[in-house]
């Protein structure tokens, strides 16, 4: 805000530090740069809870977090340094496995089972929606597995981009298909000029 003075800024910093100390910072968020555009990162005390992809509406994501997790949502870039560092390494092709605590609370039941199964797909490999449905305990729930994939609250880190249609078609991606393609190229799964 243009009316903010430097003193208000320092007061805001101190306030946020004290809020964190007192355990009042339920959701910390920050933005991070990526080759695809800005990402929104949000975490609780348990771990990373939400990653917003470029093109997703940050205000809506934050309002959703306020409603579903806690309204004590504050911007706190320092709190997300680890996440930002690992993502940077990943985009540079220097990290093939994230070592970050995750908070699964935004996905329940079968969806969470599917996402946990997706989280175990190794770097540079792909699986089909059918396989994910089977891994989550219900082979016939392929459509539900697809929905779980599409509603993944922690994309990139939980690698839903590694799930393809049976036969190898790309399927969908919240960040758009070009981003999914680029991620699979980065991981060496797709050639530079993929057949889609």
């Amino acid at each position, binding site marked *: *805000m*243009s*009316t*903010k*003075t430097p*003193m*208000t800024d*320092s*007061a*805001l910093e*101190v*306030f946020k530090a*004290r*809020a964190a100390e*007192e355990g*009042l910072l339920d*959701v910390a*968020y920050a933005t991070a740069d990526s080759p695809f555009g800005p990402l929104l990162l949000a975490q609780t005390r348990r771990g990373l809870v939400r990653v917003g992809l470029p093109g997703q509406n940050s205000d809506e994501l*934050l*309002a959703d*977090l*306020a*409603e579903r997790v*806690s*309204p*004590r*949502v*504050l*911007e706190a870039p320092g709190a997300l340094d680890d996440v930002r560092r690992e993502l940077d390494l990943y985009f540079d092709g220097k990290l093939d496995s994230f070592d970050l605590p995750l908070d699964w609370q935004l996905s329940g039941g079968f969806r969470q089972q599917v996402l946990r199964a997706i989280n175990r797909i190794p770097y540079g490999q792909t699986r089909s929606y059918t396989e994910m449905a089977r891994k989550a305990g219900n082979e016939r729930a392929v459509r539900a597995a697809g929905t779980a994939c599409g509603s993944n609250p922690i994309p990139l880190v939980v690698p839903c981009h590694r799930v393809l249609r049976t036969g190898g078609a790309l399927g969908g991606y919240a960040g758009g298909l070009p981003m999914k393609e680029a991620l699979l190229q980065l991981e060496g799964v797709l050639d530079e000029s993929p057949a889609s």
Partner: protein
Amino acid sequence: MTALPPFQTVLDEHSAAVMGILRGAVGHEGAEDCFQETFLAALRAYPKLEDSRNLRGWLLTIAHRKAIDHHRARGRNPVPVAEVAEVAVEDGNPERDEELWAAVGALPPKQRAAVALRYGSDLPHGEIAAALGCSPEAARRSLHEGLKRLRKELA
């Protein structure tokens, strides 16, 4: 019930106004402390807040209490306020507010306190007098002098 916005939004929209009013009420030096206390109290209570329609009024009520605590802790002029007014302060133009409260902050201490308590905190004259430890007549005079000076300053 209207959903509560992320607390960051509350900070973005109202922190400048709260700081401005606190500067008027307790001066620049104490304002930063009161600011922390105000927003920490607000953050503690926030998830249970039932009405999100007048967040500014809610924050200013808390800020007012913190300003009174501040004066009390300083040991000068304990403030015998029976009850804190829960009325919301009308929303104005925030930029205009900032300018105004900066001018209030520049007033001599008695005038500044009288103006802040009257218009920042909505206290009646009797309570302003009690807060300042002077007669109602003297409080009225401080307020009058303060306003006269502000009118000249902001004209």
